[in-house]
């Protein structure tokens, strides 16, 4: 239990309104977007400036309170679910200032609670571009994106969050200030701690400021939709596009199950008998080059067996082509009460093998699984539609998930492309890596967080 004097101390530090202690308030921070059991924190703390954040961390450390930092709580692997014993949630949504957008040097400095889409819009206003676009960008925070190394639809061409992190200044477990990276393109000063922070899921430090790289935006884009009778042909098309030295900014795939669910939902007249559709978008710095690329892509699609290819003529048509992809998750999510959204990722040449395996697993466990995702980077989202209240069915879901990961690993893939490991996938981590990897990671963790208070239990267990 948190003592009355400690509670007062937090209240004096943060103001009464920013210390949530009532049962109903705490229950609202017991979950995130992962399908996992909730854990109610003992206290929820909301610092509103850097100094308060540092002191909050120090106070938690002194009182041995495990800290889970939370932005928007959209995590899909349980990373923002608090720790069972005396867990405290530190909210970052009071730290939501964009401190600098530098148009000469192409970087921005932000606090961790800035919402991704708001940041991207501010950057766009200045004629610049911040490409990472995770599905939750309308609410997700940049701190959360860095902690999870979030991806998105533009990963293939533009990379993921880690490719834009130039520096991270953070509070260590004791509440002391650590600086890493900087504002220059080249910077080899000290260990590359900034990149160690990326994807660390709150286990190594509490971010205070993040320095992000910005790039000039593309000026033109073209979108196409290709239908295939055979998923192998879709996959060969993906490989052929890249082999032709064209890197689309978006290369999304919807499988037959997803196409049908989206069509049920939107009644948009999608090709229900197609084995797969690819949504392809190319962009670039010059309209003529982009049009050239787009025509080549259409040709490649046809040559590789696409039965139909549509190219959007204008913004309205482009919007229409995107409709199927935009509605993939909403359609899947509406089909059954519980949506288990996985993100097993394989080398892109293995997509047909992966999708075949997923469909076999669905049949074996009598489950409905729709798969969509980022075909260009092999990051698929097999989405299991179920009802978590049906214990027997949910057990089959768990078995199916185990098997999906086994297959992904056997195909040279990985457990998670962009959702993180958290607690949901930590049990498989050794299978993908090695015993020594876990031990090495735990030693690292122990060295910087001897009391095991920074989001303990996440990624590496322990």
């Amino acid at each position, binding site marked *: 239990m948190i003592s009355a004097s400690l509670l007062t101390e937090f209240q004096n530090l943060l103001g009464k309104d920013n210390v949530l202690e009532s049962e109903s308030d705490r229950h609202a921070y017991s979950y995130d977007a992962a399908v996992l059991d909730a854990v109610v924190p003992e206290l929820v703390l909301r610092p509103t400036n850097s100094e308060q954040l540092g002191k909050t961390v120090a106070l938690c450390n002194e009182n041995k309170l495990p800290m889970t930092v939370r932005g928007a709580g959209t995590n899909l692997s349980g990373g923002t679910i608090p720790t069972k014993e005396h867990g405290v949630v530190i909210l970052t949504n009071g730290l939501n200032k964009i401190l600098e957008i530098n148009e000469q040097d192409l970087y921005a400095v932000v606090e961790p609670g800035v919402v991704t889409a708001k940041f991207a819009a501010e950057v766009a206003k200045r004629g610049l571009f911040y490409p990472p676009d995770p599905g939750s960008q309308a609410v997700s925070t940049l701190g959360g994106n860095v902690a999870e190394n979030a991806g998105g639809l533009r990963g293939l061409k533009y990379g993921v969050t880690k490719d834009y992190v130039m520096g991270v200044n953070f509070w260590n477990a004791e509440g002391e200030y650590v600086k890493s990276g900087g504002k220059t393109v080249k910077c080899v000063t000290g260990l590359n701690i900034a990149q160690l922070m990326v994807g660390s899921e709150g286990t190594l430090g509490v971010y205070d400021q993040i320095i992000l790289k910005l790039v000039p935006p593309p000026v033109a884009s073209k979108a196409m939709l290709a239908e295939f009778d055979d998923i192998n042909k879709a996959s060969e098309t993906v490989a052929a596009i890249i082999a032709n030295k064209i890197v689309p900014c978006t290369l999304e795939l919807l499988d037959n199950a997803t196409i049908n669910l989206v069509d049920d939902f939107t009644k948009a007249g999608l090709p229900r008998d197609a084995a797969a559709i690819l949504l392809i978008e190319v962009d670039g710095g010059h309209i003529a080059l982009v049009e050239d690329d787009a025509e080549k892509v259409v040709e490649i699609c046809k040559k590789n067996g696409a039965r139909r290819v549509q190219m959007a003529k204008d913004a309205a048509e482009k919007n229409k082509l995107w409709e199927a992809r935009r509605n993939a998750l909403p359609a899947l999510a509406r089909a059954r*009460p519980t949506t288990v959204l996985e993100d097993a990722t394989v080398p892109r040449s293995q997509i047909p093998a992966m999708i075949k395996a997923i469909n076999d697993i669905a049949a074996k466990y009598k489950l409905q699984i729709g798969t969509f995702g980022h075909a260009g980077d092999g990051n698929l989202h097999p989405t299991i539609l179920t009802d978590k209240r049906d214990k027997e069915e949910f057990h089959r879901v768990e078995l199916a998930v185990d098997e999906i990961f086994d297959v992904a690993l056997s195909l040279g893939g990985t457990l998670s492309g962009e959702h993180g490991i958290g607690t949901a996938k930590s049990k498989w981590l050794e299978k993908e890596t090695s015993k020594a990897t876990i031990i090495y990671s735990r030693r690292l963790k122990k060295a910087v967080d001897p009391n095991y208070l920074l989001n303990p239990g996440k990624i590496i267990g322990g």
Partner: protein
Amino acid sequence: MHEDLHQLAKMLHELDDQMVACMKCGMCQAVCPVFSETMKEGDVARGKIALLENLSHEMIADAEGVQDKLNKCLLCGSCAANCPSGVKVLDIFFKARVIVNTYMGLSATKKAIFQGLLTKPALFNSVLDVASKFQGVFTKTANEVIGSSCSRINAPVIGERHFMPLAKKPLRKLEPALNTRPGKGGYRVAFFPGCVIDKIYPQVGQAVLKALRHHELGIYMPAGQACCGIPALASGDKESFDKLVKCNLEIFEKENFDYLLTACATCTATIHELWPMMSGDKTESMQERIAALAAKTMDVNKFMVDVLKVAAPVQGHGTKVTYHDPCHLKKSMKVFEQPRALLKSNPKVEFVEMPEADRCCGCGGSFNLQHYGLSKDIGKIKRDNIVASGAQVVATGCPACMMQISDMLSQHGDKIAVKHVMEIYAETL
């Protein structure tokens, strides 16, 4: 005091099938006007649903805390309109309010208003008629363009509000009951003005009637209409809500007509959507009667444009007019093109869009009474967007929004008039 939480939990179980559809993705945070001010998870749909689930699974004992959070909601439906998994958030919240607020008990004030006054239309009307005669004694004009008032004295409920005064004569006195046959217009429509138009904005009702007469429609506007029931239902008082539904149903069933029109987005949404939704405990024949009237209920803007097809666009010059989307029109009933079409059909109107036109104004009925500070913070954003549009007039389709927007503009001393779309349309006739 509330030891028997088990009973409450059991009642909440009936919402389980609807609540389980929430996948906790958190996308509602992007659009919730209350969350954007407080930044607290318990104030957004995902948090409220999680709390209700925990209450129904007896994992939480603080029923009062859950009740507070449940009631701290504008019921604007922005979350439902933006929900990837299509959770029927408003269904859940209305039903949960009935369950939780009934269990915890209505406040004495609400009980007095809903059960003692609102459900007795004749008494309610006469009380407010008397009030309209005395209001000048306590209030003074605050803004001539808007026509708002503020308190001369330190009145506890009015506080700093710049409220719209009660009309000197309510619509019901200006326009007695009507029951006419259609002319060339062909249709016969019933008109439900609703409380706010009747008592505060009778000119809106008159504009609607002018349009209906102009188009030579048959009009049925019976005397003795009661409130649509939304204030009672939003407070969880199902008993009063049911009485109001029944009272209105009986009056409107006396005659035949093609459409039941209202000029109040909230009344339309309530009759069209909430009446059938809340009728599950009624007999089959009662459910059918409610469904039949609900199906005929239509927003007057939609009727003008979709049924009468009257709004031909013209190149307007003159007054710059912007439009605010009431949540109950756009998010609940997907009506947003029709009011704009009506405005654009007026040659003296230069239509301009404001930023975030469909952002909630922050009124939310009794939310404004219980959480005025928050309501005002949300309303300030709407006010800023209206000012940014450069408009001289802001039009909308809901008298409740008109009251809130008038308060916000008036407090900032803005000389921007607030009108109903039908008032501007009627000018062209």
